[in-house]
């Protein structure tokens, strides 16, 4: 038997593959995650190859043999084998892989640089940014928001228009200076520049001579429709309430994040220019998305899309399901039946291979969604559906989990920039991106080139099965429907069948505009070999310059990363990008579907926020003649009074609206809002107080409920500005279930989570903003000024000497201004509440401490007239202290140890 020398490269190739696929053997202590692909081979294929080349019957023996070869090879000894064919095959794989990577590296780098250059050029060229509605029809039918420009604003806009580049530079400098950003941290500086660029772009769109300007016509406005699962048009299109609710949860989450980040960006520019630009950053329509319909309030909405997505994941990891779906995509049943037996077998084989690859890829996705990312032991997300987080993170909305994963995986070090780094890019980009991409020739050509390439590749593969005559033409000539069918298949897997039909139809009608999205989908979902060029193109499709920079980084460092690692990095990253096109398509479908028009109302603005809105122009007080009444046997009348007092000068009532939130009750009857329209137009002079009285009726259907009566008033001030104020008053009937001290309250700031420095969490870098770490301990009165967890090393307070494991355990909740004694874990408790201490000497309200058994509930930012002594769950304790960002800060301890309140309350 002839012996062949095995080249060292091949031994290294085999050995590295073993290390990549079987890290548990090579690094038993380190718990490394295995790679999913290695030089285009999945684990099964690799196992097959090593068994053949080593001529062994088991994988274990094969690995052992390769280990021995490696040892010999490293010693410089010759390694011989009797299996030449496999060696040749492996050499081919290796050479092809290396060649492909090298080529892709170069092309990718070039393209990414071109893309960035083009982006940079366009950034400050309003003509290229501005698109007409006709070009893409992505504008909202929702009424556009208009803002009056002050003289100062006009001057600043003129300056921006005169020399945009200079203005951007100056604004960047001012932001850095005013916010005290760290010049040594390129991410912070980049953040400032991004915000400045966004502002400049916005300024360039504004005619400085116009007295009134349209500030935004974000496509997101239309998503307001989808914040309301009760919307009749929405309901007529998607009959399943649960599906509508899931969509509305996503929409609401997005709108909150958009609002939050836009607020942050606005604050930066406001501070830098000394002028309020908030409306330019925060279109009121986005705010309005926050509104949750009354019917939905009180119903749990935290489950989001997890159930369907879980099932989706389960399905896409099943080879059988995938086979079925792919078959549907490539050939219809009739044509399939027309194939000969051999042709069918070959096609089946091809489909099975593809399904197997997708399944492997989906398994990698499974790692991510099951909170563990390959090569990352840290938890990706806490309690939220991982898939959704990945979508959002990939899109730049939730920067932390995946951004951290990406940055750590790529050895960027820790991701410690302010949240603004990614979010405003998204905030701005998503607003414009769809329009931009569709008409940016460069991207279009890259993408359509890719699409064609992919189509050709697919077609070629199919043709290679010798049944090309029947399939090639169809595939090559008709990419869009194919991609449409893929989306359709996946949407089916998502169980959103009604949407699927709509999407598929809509895609056909809008195929030319969707080229890039579908290509994105293909790139994200089916470019399985992970060539960097695809990644960069994918990033380009996503449209984020910063991510393209990451792309460049990846490309330029590919050489330094071992092949095994490379495969592991790229595949999950590609997987991350699968989500974008799916969601983009769904969103586009939603936006463009002419049927979805939120009926605008002049008297009842949708989304008027619940809870407290402080106005600097008026004082608003609402009271009822009762706080609590026993369960009813007949109808009862409740009397309310609203007092409106101007603070600065005369005001005229522009609109006044009353509405009700009912928590609990047994299918409660809706409450008829009083007609307060007769007060519109009333002028209230300073030192005057306008008192409005009205009555409502409650009945036994409201037993065991809390009725929150909300008033929202818009006044016009003497200098022509509109100012909104809102307050609420709650009454309790019987014993309603209260699982949050603010019934139906929404958590706005969560407990600290090591590593999440940019989310809305107490004690993280974002929380402290311009405050110093020693401004106050968290929780209060603990002497704890920093996190002790080693993974919190990016926290600015990590260097504090006084640290603890429960650092930042607290939540902030907003909603109504009434604070109730809550249940915990569904159990009614008897609390003993007492006055605790003042906050900021009383300038930020007061703290009350309630005890029940081992529980200690610390409620902060309340008025100092709260009830003390014995209070049962569901009884009112007091009211929120009226500060501009009125909220309840909650800390909770069990058995003398602080815990995360959100694990017990307000979920």
């Amino acid at each position, binding site marked *: 038997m002839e012996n062949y020398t095995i080249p060292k490269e091949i031994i290294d190739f085999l050995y590295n593959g073993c290390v990549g696929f079987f890290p548990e053997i090579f690094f038993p202590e380190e718990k490394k995650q295995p790679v999913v692909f290695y030089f285009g081979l999945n684990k099964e294929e690799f196992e097959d190859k090593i068994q053949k080349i080593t001529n062994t019957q088991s994988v274990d023996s094969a690995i052992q043999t390769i280990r021995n070869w490696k040892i010999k090879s490293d010693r410089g000894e010759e390694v011989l084998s009797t299996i030449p064919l496999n060696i040749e095959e492996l050499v081919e794989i290796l050479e092809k892989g290396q060649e492909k990577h090298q080529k892709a590296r170069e092309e990718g780098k070039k393209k990414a640089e071109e893309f960035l250059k083009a982006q940079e050029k366009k950034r400050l060229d309003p003509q290229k940014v501005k698109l007409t509605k006709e070009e893409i029809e992505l504008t909202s039918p929702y009424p556009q928001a208009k803002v009056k420009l002050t003289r100062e604003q006009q001057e600043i806009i003129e300056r921006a228009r005169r020399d945009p580049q200079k203005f951007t530079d100056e604004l960047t400098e001012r932001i850095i200076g005013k916010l005290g950003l760290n010049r040594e941290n390129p991410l912070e500086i980049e953040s400032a520049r991004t915000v400045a660029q966004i502002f400049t772009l916005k300024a360039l769109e504004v005619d400085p001579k116009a007295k009134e300007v349209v500030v935004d016509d974000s496509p997101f406005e239309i998503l307001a429709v989808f914040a309301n699962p009760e919307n009749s048009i929405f309901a007529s299109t998607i009959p399943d309430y649960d599906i509508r609710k899931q969509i509305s949860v996503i929409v609401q989450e997005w709108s909150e994040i958009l609002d*939050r980040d836009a*607020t*942050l960006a606005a*604050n930066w520019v406001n501070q830098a220019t000394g002028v309020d630009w908030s409306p330019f950053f925060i279109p009121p329509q986005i705010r309005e998305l926050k509104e949750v319909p009354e019917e939905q309030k009180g119903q749990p909405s935290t489950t989001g899309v997890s159930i369907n997505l879980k099932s989706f994941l389960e399905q896409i990891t099943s080879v059988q399901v995938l086979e079925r779906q792919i078959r549907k995509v490539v050939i219809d049943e009739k044509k399939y039946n027309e194939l000969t037996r051999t042709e069918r077998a070959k096609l089946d084989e091809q489909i099975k291979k593809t399904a197997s690859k997708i399944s492997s890829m989906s398994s990698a996705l499974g790692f991510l969604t099951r909170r563990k990312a390959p090569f990352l032991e840290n938890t990706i997300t806490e309690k939220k559906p991982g898939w959704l987080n990945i979508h959002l993170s990939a899109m730049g909305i939730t920067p932390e989990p995946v951004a951290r994963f990406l940055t750590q995986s790529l050895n960027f070090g820790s991701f410690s920039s302010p949240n603004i780094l990614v979010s405003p890019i998204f905030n701005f980009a998503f607003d414009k991106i769809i329009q931009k991409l569709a008409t940016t020739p460069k991207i279009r050509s890259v993408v359509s080139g890719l699409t064609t390439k992919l189509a050709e590749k697919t077609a070629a593969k199919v043709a290679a099965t010798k049944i090309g005559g029947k399939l090639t033409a169809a595939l090559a000539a008709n990419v869009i429907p194919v991609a449409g069918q893929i989306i359709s298949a996946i949407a089916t897997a998502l169980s959103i069948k009604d949407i699927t039909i709509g999407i598929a139809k809509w895609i056909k009608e809008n195929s030319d505009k969707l080229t890039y999205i579908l290509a994105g989908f293909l790139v994200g979902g089916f470019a399985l070999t992970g060539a960097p060029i695809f990644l960069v193109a994918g990033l380009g499709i996503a449209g984020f310059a910063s991510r393209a920079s990451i792309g460049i980084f990846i490309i330029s460092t590919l050489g330094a990363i071992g092949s095994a690692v490379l495969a592991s990095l790229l595949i999950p990253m590609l997987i991350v990008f699968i989500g974008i096109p799916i969601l983009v398509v769904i969103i586009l479908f939603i936006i463009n579907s002419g049927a979805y028009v939120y009926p605008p109302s002049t008297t009842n603005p949708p989304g008027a926020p619940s809870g407290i809105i402080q106005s600097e122009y008026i004082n608003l007080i609402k009271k009822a003649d009762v706080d609590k009444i026993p369960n009813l046997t007949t109808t009862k009348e409740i009397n309310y009074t609203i007092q409106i007092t101007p603070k600065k000068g005369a005001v005229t009532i522009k609109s006044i609206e009353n509405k009700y939130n009912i928590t609990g009750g047994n299918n409660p009857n809706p409450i008829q809002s009083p007609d307060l329209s007769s007060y519109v137009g009333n002028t209230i002079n300073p030192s005057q107080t306008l008192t409005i009285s009205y009555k409502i009726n409650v009945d036994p259907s409201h037993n065991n409920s809390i009725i929150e009566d909300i008033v929202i008033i818009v006044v016009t001030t003497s200098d022509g500005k509109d100012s909104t104020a809102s307050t609420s008053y709650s009454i309790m009937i019987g014993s309603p279930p209260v699982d949050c001290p603010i019934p139906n309250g929404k958590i*706005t*700031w969560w407990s600290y989570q090591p590593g999440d420095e940019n989310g809305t969490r107490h004690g993280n870098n974002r*929380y402290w*903003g*311009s*405050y110093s770490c020693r*401004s*106050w301990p*968290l*929780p*209060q*009165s*603990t*002497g704890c000024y920093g996190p002790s967890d080693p993974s919190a090393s990016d926290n600015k307070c990590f260097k504090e000497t006084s640290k603890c494991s429960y650092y930042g355990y607290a939540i*902030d909740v*907003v909603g109504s201004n009434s604070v109730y004694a809550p249940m915990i874990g569904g159990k009614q408790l008897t609390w003993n509440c007492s006055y*605790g*201490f*003042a*906050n*900021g*000497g009383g*300038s*930020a309200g007061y*703290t009350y*401490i309630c*005890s029940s058994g*081992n529980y*200690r509930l*610390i409620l*902060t*930012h309340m008025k100092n007239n709260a009830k003390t002594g014995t209070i049962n769950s569901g009884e009112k304790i007091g009211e929120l202290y009226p*500060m*501009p*960002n009125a*909220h309840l*800060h909650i*800390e909770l*301890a069990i*058995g*003398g*140890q*602080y815990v995360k309140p959100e694990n017990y309350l307000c979920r």
Partner: protein
Amino acid sequence: MKKLITKKQVIIIIASVVFFLSFVFFAFYLLPKKEKNNIPQTIPETLPFEIKDRPQGGEIETALDNLAFSFTFSKEIDKNSVFVQINPDTEFEISFENNNKTLTIFPKNKWIYGENYEIKINLKSKEKDEIKEPILHKFKLNKPKNSPMDESQIGY
């Protein structure tokens, strides 16, 4: 004349040195002592297995009248060897976490604000390492009167 001046100089120098030394002594020894709480901190050394993490001692401002105290050791604790005593006599419960390396003491009732407490702990490691001296943890809880936390600039 010269001699007298010399003596004077010597006296001045000696006086200055004594003054300086007194000042140093006062500044570096006495002052920090005065600034410290009147109640001594936990006794640190517990060889042969040591405390990795212990709670704050001395005067503690806290909103929790049932504050728990956790002591983390470098080795696994022999649960049967643990002896805890609290003065004044207080009912308590203990638990073990962190692979039995952390001992937590929970009062069954509330601590009394303003009272001086002393927790005495004696224990062995699972490997039967003994601590040379019992751990003494002295503390006094004070009720907070004001919290600087205002959160008024935190965005919502």
